[in-house]
């Protein structure tokens, strides 16, 4: 994993603000020194509109902050139920591209 500069996390929330079990196992085992690395998180839940801070994002972000990672762009809560918010995802990917371009210039 150490060869990568940027880590993108896409994750739904299950239960009461919990990760999908395979993602939870991955996060627990993920102990990379992130101090020179970037990350961005897209939460695939159904939260926007009634919570500012949302499940999977909160857990993953907490862990990556402990590993001293730098957040490249703010997290996205992509609503998936009943309508998928593709527009927000496209906009978020655009921001990611812009930041990556800036970082390499």
């Amino acid at each position: 994993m150490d060869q990568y500069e940027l880590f993108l996390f896409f994750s739904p929330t299950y239960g009461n603000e919990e990760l999908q079990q395979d993602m939870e196992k991955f996060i627990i085992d993920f102990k990379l020194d992130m101090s020179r690395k970037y990350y961005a998180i897209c939460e695939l839940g159904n939260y926007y509109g009634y919570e500012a801070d949302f499940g999977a994002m909160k857990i993953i972000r907490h862990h990556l902050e402990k590993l001293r990672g730098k957040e490249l762009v703010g997290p996205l809560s992509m609503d998936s139920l009943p309508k998928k918010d593709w527009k927000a995802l496209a906009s978020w990917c655009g921001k990611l591209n812009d930041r990556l371009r800036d970082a390499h210039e």
Partner: protein
Amino acid sequence: MRMNDFDAIDLLKKKVGVPFHCRFENERCVELDLASQDYIFRGLVRHRTQSEKAEILCVIAGLTSLQRLNLRSNMFHSIPDYFGNLAQLRYLDLSSNHLGKVPLWIHEIENLEHLNLSANDIGELPPFLSKFHNLKTLRLHKNTFRYYPDDYGVFAKLELLNLYSSRLKRIPPVIFDYSKLRVLAWGVTPIADLSADIGRLQELECLMLQCNCLTVLPDALCELRRLKSVFLLQNRLKELPKEIGNLENLEHVTLYQNELGSLPASFENLKNLRRLNLAWNRFEELPPVMMGLPKLEWFGFFYNPVRGGMPRLNHIKEVILEK
């Protein structure tokens, strides 16, 4: 010989390995929390082996004076029947433990007031829960049951009921008999209308009805004068009741992802409104009533097909026009 509660907690501290909350009264442990807001995964023994968890449960079962027990998010999968020893429990949180069914030993508890069984893949609700006439909070959300027993009509003291994301096809009529209810959460179901009986829940302060197929709301909703928060996001509402302005105590309204193109004139009477989300609707212009909501601090209005420019909304601290 039975271990005293101090020794049992000492043993538990060794087995759990991280600090947890417990409280004693007269040398008996009356409160125990194996979940913590400070731990990001909540359940403090969530990642222990099943045999370690079994040992921990065995010690807890000896604390027979417990009145409050929180085992949330620990993935216990099952809680043994000898937990029936904990007959003094008033508060029990077993949420997010993959239990698959309501444990039978709960029947041994004498007088439960708060029960949380959410997110446990529970496919059936047993009639015996109806023995708890003094229940004040009942959280059953994120389970798979399809039937809510009529026997549960005895919960006359219920103040909070969470049935969000079950497999119920309609709101059970018995719920409208819960005259003390202050919080009702329901969502992710195919219901297209809301019974006018909602008007009988006169103590209601928070109503969550997100992600259904509601197209219309009953006028009776406007009789719930104590309402402070209404969450109606992700429905199919085309209009709101004309007298919505009667709900003068409303502070938080979320109508995100509906089909609204206008607001009733009475909306302007919601002088205590602080947060309003009208995003992803069909508004072609800013509703004129928006200019007359003096306490509004947060306003979401993105993804509306607004024609022309937007007036300035300098009186609102945070305006979200783009996601």
